[in-house]
């Protein structure tokens, strides 16, 4: 558990958060801004001390064997922690040396990583001239310099443009293929879905759900029939038809004229809806059978959209005690 105290309020950044990353797997820590993802990573990476609870990385206690922990982890954070005034190669060499590699080993490892991350051409340029995506790749390379057994990636694509994000995903997928053990935090549901084996959903410092992407999706329910109708005046009629075809209450978005309803009759149900709509001459712009996204999961679990900052009600956090443990 991690509690931040100020004169008037006390914010529990982490409150009894408990998780395990199996060797060779990717755990995605998913949550909105302020949920406690970064705090978790900082505690596990020995940058921050937990107020209570225990965490071990590769068998080493993060509080009492910090130096041993540091020699088996790699950390790549939200903000590229590389030196702007050094070249890419110099940055990696320096991190290698500080990882206690010999100068030769560090030089060789730097060369390998620059190659692996497509930075060879820019290797001898000062980092100041790099694009955001290149900096992130260099930062990640820095985290890998000592062949870490556990790699922390704290929001590796936050702030990158779509192209940079796809590039980063490729790099991370490559690491996963090579058998890396990874703890990834993200506020993008798509990213967790794409990269993680298991996902832990965090909100207000607590894990509120965990499982594979499919398991989480099935918590929300199965498939949905989704219709976008042409004219807003037909909304009521279409809703009645969907209510009959589905197994729950239809959800209507008047703004986009989109109606959706959970179903368990699959394609057959969809055909029925098409027929019924046609019969009463309701024109449709789009119709389909949709599997729930992690956005739906988030909405169901937390009652607010993933995009909303959880930090807004931080001031109301209550004092108290408890225990939390994290193991990796």
């Amino acid at each position, binding site marked *: 558990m991690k509690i931040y105290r100020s004169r008037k309020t006390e914010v529990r950044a982490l409150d009894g958060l408990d998780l395990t990353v199996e*060797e*060779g797997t990717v755990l995605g820590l998913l949550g909105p801004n302020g949920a406690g993802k970064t705090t978790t990573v900082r505690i596990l*990476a*020995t*940058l*921050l*001390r937990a107020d209570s609870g225990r965490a071990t990385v590769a068998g080493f206690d993060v509080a009492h064997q910090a*130096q*041993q922990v*540091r*020699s*088996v*982890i*790699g*950390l790549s*954070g939200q*903000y*590229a*922690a*590389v*030196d*702007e*005034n*050094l070249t890419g190669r*110099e940055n990696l060499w*320096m*991190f290698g*040396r*500080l*990882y*206690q*590699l*010999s100068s030769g*080993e560090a030089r060789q490892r730097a060369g390998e990583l620059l190659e692996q991350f497509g930075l060879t051409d820019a290797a001898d340029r*000062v980092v100041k001239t790099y694009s955001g995506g290149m900096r992130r790749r260099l930062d990640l390379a*820095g985290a890998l310099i*000592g*062949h870490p*057994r556990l790699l922390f990636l704290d929001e590796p694509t936050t702030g990158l443009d779509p192209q940079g994000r796809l590039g980063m995903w490729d790099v991370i997928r490559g690491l996963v293929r090579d*058998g*890396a*053990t990874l703890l990834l935090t993200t506020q993008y549901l798509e990213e967790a879905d794409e990269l993680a084996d298991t996902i832990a959903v965090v909100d207000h410092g607590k894990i509120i759900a965990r499982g594979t992407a499919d398991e989480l999706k099935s918590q929300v329910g199965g498939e949905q029939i989704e219709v976008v109708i042409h004219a807003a005046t037909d909304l009521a009629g279409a809703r009645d038809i969907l209510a009959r075809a589905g197994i729950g209450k239809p959800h209507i978005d008047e703004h986009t004229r989109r109606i959706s309803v959970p179903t368990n009759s699959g394609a057959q149900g969809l055909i029925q809806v098409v027929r019924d709509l046609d019969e009463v001459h309701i024109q449709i712009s789009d119709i389909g059978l949709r599997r729930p996204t992690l956005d739906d999961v988030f909405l169901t679990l937390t009652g607010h959209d993933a995009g909303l900052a959880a930090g807004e009600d931080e001031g109301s956090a209550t004092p108290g005690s408890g225990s939390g443990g994290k193991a990796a």
Partner: protein
Amino acid sequence: MTARATAPRSREGRGGLRQAVGDGLIVTWRNLKRIPRIPELAIFAVLQSIMFVLLFAFVFGGAIPLPGGGNYREYLMPGIFAQTIVFAAATTAIGMSEDVHKGIIDRFRSLPMARSAVLVGRTLSDVVYNGGILIVLMLSGLVVGWTIRTGIPPLLEGVALLLLFTFAMSWIGVWLGLSVPSVEVAQQAVFIVLFPITFVSNVFVPPQTLPSWLQPIAEWNPTSTLTASLRQLWGNPNPFVSTGFPSQHPVLVTLIWVVVIVAIFAPLGIRRYRLMSR
């Protein structure tokens, strides 16, 4: 196990002190690399000192008579060297604060490196950097009429004293840089501390011209004792403010100041650094 065949075993083989020195030197290297990459920093640091030389040598100098006579420019230059060194704390504070806020410190703290290396590297590199600036300033001093009347050994002693003092000031900078919430605050805070230290001293004016209550402060001020030491060592005009101890034994008092400053600010800085994990 994902640990691959090349996982380095040498990590555990290094001794504590050896690793501390090695890691400290790597961070020093990293800090020094920045100087040629942003030459403007060093250029403006030198220009700032030269501006003070020109202002005082040609604008105010004529209005400042030295008790017992002597060339004002010759009197001024050791003060300028001392002032430059005192302002080394600013370089350190700003550099330290920048590192903290750009996240590179987080990187360092997540590596299995000596805990001391970041702070040691910062202070050592600032000693080297300011040493370079001193050389340029000394050469400019020679141009405006400063000279050394004693010889090479006193010259080297004076330079050594300046560098020791830089080291001490850097620790003040480390503590300041780690204590302030942003780089901008570091810049502001540093000057509030440094201006009185350099101006309530014998750097620009003979302390006899100060109000009597301010004279003891000016006399014991480390900037004054450093400046008086240099003037004494190099045979430059050095009008004594009094028969007080600091005026009589400036080198000794300066060395004591160095020890006191390091003894106070190094632990404070290290404590600040440790507290980052709270």
